[in-house]
C-alpha cells in the first residue's frame, strides 16, 4: 500500500513538472528582470523578487519568494553580497538544485564587470560593507552590456535550442544600448564635475560615468541610518565643500535627504535607482532617460 502511494506521488510530481522549454527566471532586482526580458524575449518568463520601492539589501525571506524560487531555472541576481540578508535563506528553503551557488542556474551579474571600491580590510565596525566591492553596478548603463553578453551565453547554455534567439536579441540590445549611452552621455554633459551628496553610497558607478563628484554620503557608515547629529556634520562639511544636489534612491527614507535639502538649500533629487523606482522608469532605457532628466532638472532648480 505504501509503495503504491509513493509511486502515485512520484507520478503526480512528474505530471506537475513543467514540460515547456521556456526558462523560468527568478530576478532578484527589477533591473536584472528587465535585462532578462531584453535577452530572453518570449522564451523566458521573468519573476521579479523585489520592486523598485524596496531596498534590495533588506528583504524578508517571504514564503512567496521561496515558492517562486522553487520553480526557477535560473536566478539572476546582483551578487557581491547585496542579497546576503535574504537570498541564501530563499535558496536553502527552495529545495531547488538548479539554483544552488556554483550551478549554471545561479547567475550573479557583478561577476562580469570590474567592481569598484573593493575593501582592503573587512570589519563590521565599518558598517554594512560588501567584501567583493560596491555592488550597485546598475547605476551605470555601460555595465549592462558585458552582463547582457554573459546572460545570453548562460541562457543559451541552459536552453541550447534557443541559443541563436538569445544571441540575436543580445546583439540587438547591445546596439540599442550603445546608441542610447552615447545620447545620455552627451545630454549629461552639464553634470560633469557637479558636486553632490548621496544618502547611501550606492551611486559610485553613475558618478564615474557622468563625472559627478560625491562630497559625502549622508549615512555615517554604509547601511547605518543617519542621526540628526550625523546630518549636522554633513551640513558643516557642505559649508566648506558645497554640493549642488542631494541624491537618494526612490526606495529610501525621504527624511535625511529632505533635511539636507532644506538646510543646505540644495535641491533633493529622487532617482529611480532601478526599473520601477519611478513611474517613468519602466524598462532599462527609460530608467536612464529618467535618471538623466531628473539630474538635469535638479541642476536647473
Amino acid at each position, binding site marked *: 500500500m505504501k509503495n503504491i502511494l509513493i509511486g502515485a506521488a512520484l507520478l503526480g510530481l512528474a505530471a506537475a513538472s513543467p514540460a515547456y522549454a521556456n526558462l523560468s527566471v527568478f530576478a532578484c532586482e527589477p533591473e536584472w528582470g528587465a535585462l532578462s526580458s531584453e535577452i530572453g524575449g518570449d522564451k523566458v518568463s521573468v519573476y521579479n523578487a523585489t520592486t523598485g520601492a524596496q531596498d534590495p539589501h533588506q528583504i524578508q*525571506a517571504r514564503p512567496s519568494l521561496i515558492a517562486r524560487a522553487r520553480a526557477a531555472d535560473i536566478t539572476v541576481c546582483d551578487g557581491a553580497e547585496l542579497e546576503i*540578508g535574504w537570498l*541564501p535563506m530563499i535558496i536553502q528553503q527552495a*529545495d531547488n538544485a538548479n539554483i544552488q551557488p556554483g550551478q549554471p542556474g545561479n547567475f550573479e551579474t557583478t561577476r562580469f564587470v570590474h567592481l569598484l571600491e573593493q575593501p582592503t580590510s573587512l570589519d563590521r565596525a565599518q558598517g554594512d560593507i560588501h567584501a567583493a566591492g560596491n555592488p550597485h553596478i546598475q547605476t551605470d548603463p555601460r555595465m549592462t552590456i558585458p552582463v547582457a553578453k554573459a546572460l545570453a551565453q548562460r541562457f543559451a547554455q541552459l536552453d541550447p535550442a534557443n541559443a541563436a534567439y538569445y544571441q540575436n536579441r543580445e546583439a540587438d540590445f547591445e546596439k540599442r544600448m550603445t546608441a542610447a549611452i552615447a545620447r545620455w552621455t552627451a545630454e549629461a554633459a552639464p553634470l560633469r564635475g557637479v558636486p553632490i551628496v548621496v544618502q547611501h553610497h550606492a551611486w559610485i558607478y553613475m558618478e564615474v560615468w557622468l563625472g559627478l563628484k560625491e562630497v559625502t554620503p549622508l549615512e555615517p557608515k554604509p547601511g547605518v541610518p543617519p542621526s540628526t547629529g550625523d546630518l549636522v556634520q554633513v551640513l558643516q562639511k557642505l559649508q566648506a565643500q558645497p554640493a549642488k544636489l542631494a541624491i537618494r534612491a526612490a526606495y529610501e527614507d525621504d527624511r535625511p535627504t529632505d533635511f539636507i535639502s532644506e538646510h543646505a538649500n540644495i535641491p533633493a533629487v529622487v532617482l529611480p535607482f532601478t526599473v520601477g523606482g519611478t513611474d517613468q522608469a519602466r524598462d532599462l532605457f527609460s530608467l536612464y532617460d529618467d535618471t538623466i532628466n531628473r539630474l538635469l532638472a535638479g541642476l536647473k532648480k
Partner: protein
Amino acid sequence: MGIPFKNRRLLRVAALPAAALLTFASATPSFADQASDLAAIRGEIAQMQREYNARIAALEARLKKAEAEARAARSAAAAAGKTADHAQVTAQQMVQAAETAQQQAPEPAAPPTPPSSINSFNPGIAAVLNGFYTAATKSTKTASIAGFALGDEAGGPPKGFSIGESEVSLTANIDPEMAGFLDFSFDRENHPTVEEAYVRSISLPWGFTAKAGRFLSGIGYLNERHAHDWSFSDAPLPYRVFLNTQYGDDGIQLRWLAPTDVFLEFGGEWFRGDSYPAAGAANAGQGTQTLFVHAGDDINESSSWLAALSYLHSTAVNRQTDDIYGFNGGTDRFSGKDDLGIATFVYKWAPGGNPTVRNFVASGEFFYGHEHGLFDDVPISTDRYGWYAQGVYQFMPQWSLGVRYAQMSTGAIPAALNGSALDSFGHTPRAETALVEYDTSEFGRLRLQYTHDDAGLKPNDEVLLQYTVIYGPHGAHRY
C-alpha cells in the same frame, strides 16, 4: 574611429609646409641685365624673402600648434578610455570619448583567483553572545506554571547579571550533494551542549530536502528558530510547557516543497525520542514522530502570511520532571504517550515590502496536547491546551515595541494527584509581556522586557535587560 581621424589631420598639417617650399622654389627670380632694374629687383627679392620667411614662420607655428593639439587629443582620448572623466567639452569629443570609454571601461572582470591555501575551505564560523540583567519580585530560575510538570529548560535567567547560552556554529557545503551544520553552546555553568549537528541535502530533485543528525524540529513557528532569532527574550508559555522551550533531538527529516506559486511545504520527522516531552528513546530509539505542513503567500505588496499545522507524537519512558511541591520526593515520573497539535499563524506587514523603516509582525499559535500513561504511578489521560499571541512594531529604524499575551489551561486529573505538579489549584496560568528593542545594526540588539508572570500560584514581576550579538558570517534569517 579615432585613429583615422587623427591621421587625416596629421597629413594635412604635414602637407602645408611642403606646399610652401614648392611655391618658394618656383618663385625664385632670375637676374636681369639692366643695372637700373637690379636694385629694384633686389629690393623686390628682399621683400619677397621677408614675406616668405614670415609665411614659413607662421606655417611652422601652425604646424607646432597642430602637433600639440593632436597630442592633446590623443592623451584626452586615452584618459577618457580609463575613466571617461577628463573628456573635453565639445559635444563631438564627448561622444568620441564615451564610445572609447564604453568599449574599455566595463571589461569583464577576470574572476578573482582565490589564493590556494590550507584554510581555503574553512567553514563559516559564527558566534552568538547574549547576556541579561534580571530584576524580579520572586526567583525566576525555577519555572512554575500551575498544573504542569515542566522540563529542565522551562525557567528563565537568574536574578542579577548572567550570560545566556553562548553559541558557536560552523557551516559549509560538504560536497555537491550535502551541507553540514554544527552548533554548540555553553550555558553559564560552562556545560557544553551540541544544539544541532546535521547534514542536509542540497541537490535532491523534485523539491525534496533531507536532513539527518541532531536538529530542531520543524513543528510550530518558533521551534525551528534559535532563541536569538525570537522576537522576545524568552519562549511563550506553551513552548515552555509542551516542548521544554524547543524540541530538538537526533533523527531524520524529509521535506517536500510543492511546485506551486503559493508556498506549500510538507514535512515529516522521525526522532530518537530523548527530549521532553519524550524520554527514554522508546521503540528502540525511534520514540518520536512529527508531521507538519506550512503554507504562505503575499496578500499584497505590503502584507504576507505564513500558516502551519504541526503534529508531534512522542513516547515517554520514565520521564523525570521537577516536583516543585515535594509530592513525590522531589522528582515526578511519567511513562506514556504524548500527542501535541499546533496551529500557527504569522502575519507580516512592511509598507511597500520595505521593512527597513517601519514594519509589523503579528503571530499566534494554539497548542492542544493529550497525555496518557502513568504519572507517579497514577493512570492519567488528560487534555491540555494553551496559546499565545504577540505583535512587534518597528516604528522607526532600529526601534521596536512589542506585546505578548500567553495563557494555559489544564485538564482534569485523578484525585490521587491532587497536590502534585499536575494540580493547578484552580489557577489559570497567564503572562503579559511588553518590550522595547533597540538594534545597533542587524547584528546587535538591546532589549528591555517586562513580564507580569501570573503562571505560577504567586505572580512574579520581571524586568529583563538583554543584549544579543551575532558575529561572523551569520546566515540570513527565516521568515
